[in-house]
């Protein structure tokens, strides 16, 4: 069988999160930038840091709500869950952001386009506490 392994990110245990946001900085750094302008993952407090944190990240839905509302078909179904953004088709309407139940689609204000998680796992490798995990799945390419 020919195929390739792709991953899907998920939150392993949010109680381990200390709110350091290293995952967010790592995600932004994929493009060689510093800061947080391009992060596809977000960590906020659950109503004050004393109550712990919430990790907002794409869980790679098998039947993604964001995809269904895109008026220009810019979001294409990704094998084994989630979506891929076809940037040239995107008109920046923001419907996908509204549609995401998990509030896991963010906005690139400079480019006026959504920031869509590609499940690359760079956030996982920068989480020192094992909050996140990446599950490898085999994609059959026959």
């Amino acid at each position, binding site marked *: 069988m020919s195929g390739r392994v792709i991953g899907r990110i998920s939150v392993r245990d949010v109680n381990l999160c200390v709110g350091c946001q*290293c995952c967010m900085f790592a995600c932004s750094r994929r493009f060689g930038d*510093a800061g947080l302008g391009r992060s596809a993952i977000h960590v906020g407090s659950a109503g004050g840091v004393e109550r712990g944190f919430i990790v907002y990240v794409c869980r790679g839905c098998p039947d993604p709500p964001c995809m269904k509302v895109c008026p220009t078909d810019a979001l294409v179904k990704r094998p084994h869950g989630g979506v891929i953004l076809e940037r040239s088709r995107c008109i920046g309407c923001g419907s996908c952001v509204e549609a995401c139940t998990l509030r896991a689609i963010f906005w690139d204000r400079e480019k006026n386009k959504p920031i869509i998680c590609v499940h690359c796992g760079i956030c996982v490798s920068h989480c020192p506490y094992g909050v996140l995990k990446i599950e490898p799945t085999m994609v059959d390419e026959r």
Partner: protein
Amino acid sequence: MIDGDPLSRVLYIDLTSRDFWVEDKTELFEKYLGGSGVASNLLLQESPIGVDPLSPENPIIITVGPLCGVFPLASKAVAMFKSPLTGNLGESHAGGRSAVAIRLAGYGAIVVRGASNIPVYLSIQGERVYFRDASAIWGMGSSYTVGRVIREREPGSGLRSIMRIGRAGERLISYACVITETYRHFGRLGLGAVFGSKRLKAIMIAGDRRLKVKDPKSYREAYREIFESVTKSPSMKKYHELGTSMNVNVLNESKSLPTRNLLKTSFEGGEEISGENFAANYLGRRVACSHCPVSCIHLAALREPYTSDPYFYKTSMISYDYELIYALGSMLEVSDPRSLLRLLDEVEIQGLDAISTGVTLAWATEAQEKGLVSENEVGMRLRWGDVENYLEAIRMIVKQPNDFYKALARGVEYASTIYGGKDFALAYGGNEMPGYHTGPACHLGFITGARHSHLDSAGYSIDQRTYTSKIEQPIEETVNQLFEEESWRQILSSLVICYFARGNYTPDFIAKALTILGYNLNQEELRRLGGEILKLKNRFKFREGFKIENLRIPRRILETETPHGRLDEDKLRRGIKLYYSKILE
């Protein structure tokens, strides 16, 4: 610096005219990097000579640096102002999300001028500053609630900092702090009172900008290097595991833990309030500042029953650190961890600096024991270890119902001027003493440090090193080491690097990181700049009336033995003279 880096933008906010504008200060940030370096310059410019710290003319300056938002552990914001506690240089650093929020909102510094006629809080979102009516939250009993209200009303969860004061700041307690993200503080030297004097309840700032770097490839490599270093190095283990409270047992065992207003240097109850015991029985959660994988912030979970109704409990999350345990624990001989947590919580609720509060209460207890103040004035009998009375006394300091509490609200230097007891009033340059009685170097550092803080030159580490290796080094050598350390720390605080990472951010790495941000400074130039910034800070101090001959050495520190034996006043005086000859060079 890199063209277009928003670091050079200084946001000016005038509370009197309710106006704001941005000025570009590229040259200033090119030359002085950011943080302490830039803030010292702005303070000298902004603050009129001899300004009353609680007048509208006293500016609040908050700065960040180029590495912030770019590399981990460069997440400290530096505040400068004239201190209402010492009447001189006010400088305080805070973590939380403060620095990253300011940097990613697109600013290198915020300067707040003037005073509002009604209570306000500021909401800074991108290019706009909103002046919000804070009348409804002014006078609110708990600083926790203030944070909660603003959190609900303002946008930017996870990307914002809410820097606010409690009632202590409103009521101008000289050592009121500014709280950020509930558990981090601009703790020392009374920034909270300066906020209060301006009727400024809080500053909310949010940001998530993208920052450019010069060469993405070398940026990624340098990032990997420092990230590996801070997550794997043994030097970070202490902060990562037990946190700073690890020091309690270390200092107690070496007889250098100030106890009972430094009548003693070890505490029988030390083990009870040690980092080990807190971790084993109370640690409820660990949290981190933005962009810091270390997570040194330790929160204890305190479960308390309500006496009014059975089966009702509240669980409070209370932050603990070494200095707090020293000031409100061993100094007051409070050995029950639960009681100590209640004291820490009260200080947080009111928005006070924990070190100054504890040292002030310790002085008050001894002053009452010695009959310098009457039970009538104090309104109770303060006793070592008596937590209920200490809790009440903290509230009284904030309420200031009579002259005695009005005096306590101004710190031990002032209170002992009125009531006597100077010999055991533990303050340097008007700032209450931190928790080390390790030997001559720590005290020389408190006396000569620009902020009179243990963070200026960390003399305790010199003492600990020389004690372990049984060296009695000449005072000249100690002075050199303190001066070198305080100078170098100006570079760290100009780049807003957390001092906990001082071993990871080597001069070599800093020079490399700065290249990525478009600076061109070698190690030698960095060291020279550090010395220059330290001299600038001292220039402000001398301008504002600081005199070397007025530096008071509390008698108590000479009477109570250190691990290096009794301290010799002449030797300390010689050290002071030598230190300032370097500063004034």
